[in-house]
């Protein structure tokens, strides 16, 4: 039996699959004008609505943006950070950035300073950088934020006491924080859930990598997490919600192409397989 079409369909050489995968990624990478069919998921919409609510009801509310990602997961967390900070600046919400990873502090600063120039955000008035703390201090800092923020944070990343900045006026403890945003590939949000969120029921928003999202669906159901951006698709969702398409949208487009390719391959493989099985069965019946 020479190699029929059905044989070829169920045993495509892997190298063709890999070439097709690269093409599926490069098309959206190069064509930024392509419009992608993307429907924001409910957790992304909840994330967006929480920030919108704060923007309209608490004009001077302060939001904490905690980053724990580094270059190894920038493929997802960088675009989430950029979309979130853009939205905060668009709706003029005050925020303070905090990092427990040295690389994250530089990467987050690059994003924030670039966007601050575009939205005329003034350091110390509209936003502030609480700087980097070693991860060993994570638990102690979280407990400190519950009761005494100036005493726990003490200085900003340039060493100046944070109470000297207008943005920190009237900010004493967790009751003065409008929301906490955690952007991380690890399960560091367990610390915020366990030590901070329950104190004053502060809305906790989470931007994980897609692989670590399933573990936290239970907290979405129970309301302990108010919204979630899941992986790079979460970034794409958020960019479409705030109408600021950037690389997150194109990466989500690439994801759609890749998923379509994989599902197409699975269908082709099964057609070939089932057809051959049917032919083999008729062969044996003869």
């Amino acid at each position, binding site marked *: 039996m020479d190699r029929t079409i059905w044989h070829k369909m169920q045993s495509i050489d*892997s*190298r063709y699959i*890999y070439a097709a*995968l*690269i093409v599926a*990624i*490069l098309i959206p*990478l*190069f064509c*930024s004008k392509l419009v992608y069919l993307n429907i924001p998921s409910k957790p992304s919409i909840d994330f967006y609505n929480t920030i919108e609510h704060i923007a309209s009801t608490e004009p001077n509310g302060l939001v904490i943006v905690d980053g724990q990602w580094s270059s190894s997961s*920038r*493929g*997802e967390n960088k675009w989430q950070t950029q979309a979130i900070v853009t939205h905060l600046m668009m709706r003029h919400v005050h925020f303070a950035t905090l990092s427990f990873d040295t690389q994250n502090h530089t990467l987050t600063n690059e994003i924030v300073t670039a966007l601050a120039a575009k939205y005329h955000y003034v350091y110390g008035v509209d936003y502030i950088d609480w700087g980097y703390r070693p991860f060993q201090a994570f638990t102690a800092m979280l407990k400190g934020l519950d009761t005494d923020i100036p005493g726990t944070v003490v200085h900003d990343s340039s060493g100046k006491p944070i109470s000297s900045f207008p943005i920190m006026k009237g900010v004493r403890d967790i009751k003065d924080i409008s929301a906490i945003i955690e952007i991380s590939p690890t399960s560091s949000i367990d610390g915020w859930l366990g030590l901070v969120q329950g104190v004053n029921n502060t809305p906790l928003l989470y931007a994980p*990598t*897609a*692989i670590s*999202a*399933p573990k936290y669906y239970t907290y979405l159901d129970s309301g302990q997490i108010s919204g979630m951006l*899941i*992986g*790079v*698709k979460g970034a794409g969702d958020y960019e479409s919600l705030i109408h600021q398409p950037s*690389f997150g949208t194109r*990466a989500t487009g*690439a*994801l759609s192409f*890749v*998923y379509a390719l*994989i599902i197409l391959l699975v269908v082709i493989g099964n057609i070939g397989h089932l057809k051959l099985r049917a032919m083999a069965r008729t062969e044996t019946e003869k």
Partner: protein
Amino acid sequence: MTDPNGYLQHILSPSLLFGALGTIALLSLVFKENKLYRLFEHIYLGLALGYDVETTWTEALRPQLWDPIVHDGQWVWVLTIPVGLMFYGVYTRRFEWMSRLVFGIFFGAAAGTVFQDMCQRFVPQVRKSFKPLVPPPPHPGDIHATLHAVSYVLNNALFITILVCVITYFFFAFDIKNKVLLLMARSGRLVLMFAFGALFGATIMTRMALLIDRMYFIFVDWLQWAPK
């Protein structure tokens, strides 16, 4: 290209060039093992081993051996050196058993923490499995009260059934002849396959995002052919 000299300097900046060539060489393995891959594989192994050695000194031996001895006068740490030498008995026939002695100490240490691990990580999972099969009293004003109650009970019943069936699959010594138990074990394995499929599907997005990021690194950060 507005400024060819600037572009050339960007393309050839050492760190970026080294990273980009290495990325292309290493990813070329998926098509075919080749000389360029082999070269960067060995460079990567050399760099990683060098980094192992450097971090062994800066993060283990210096802070916990050298500094205490030289700065704090804790000379007693020198006594760890003979114990460390026992590892190298593996290269001799006469002292080979000495390496087993120090390996044995490490086996014991690895085993010794299992009690705390089981109490701290595992038993809470047993406790969290006590899922009631009677619904909680409805919230006032909940128009779907009966619906919520039914879904609560069904979900918990399903949870317990899957848990017990999967555990039944992992019985080895009891010769299961009973029809019901055999069915439970068989369905336990099928549910496992279904769960593993879900796990596979949930992992794809993060892995694909990594490849998209590498393509971004090559075609945007480095070559600047694609828009930012």
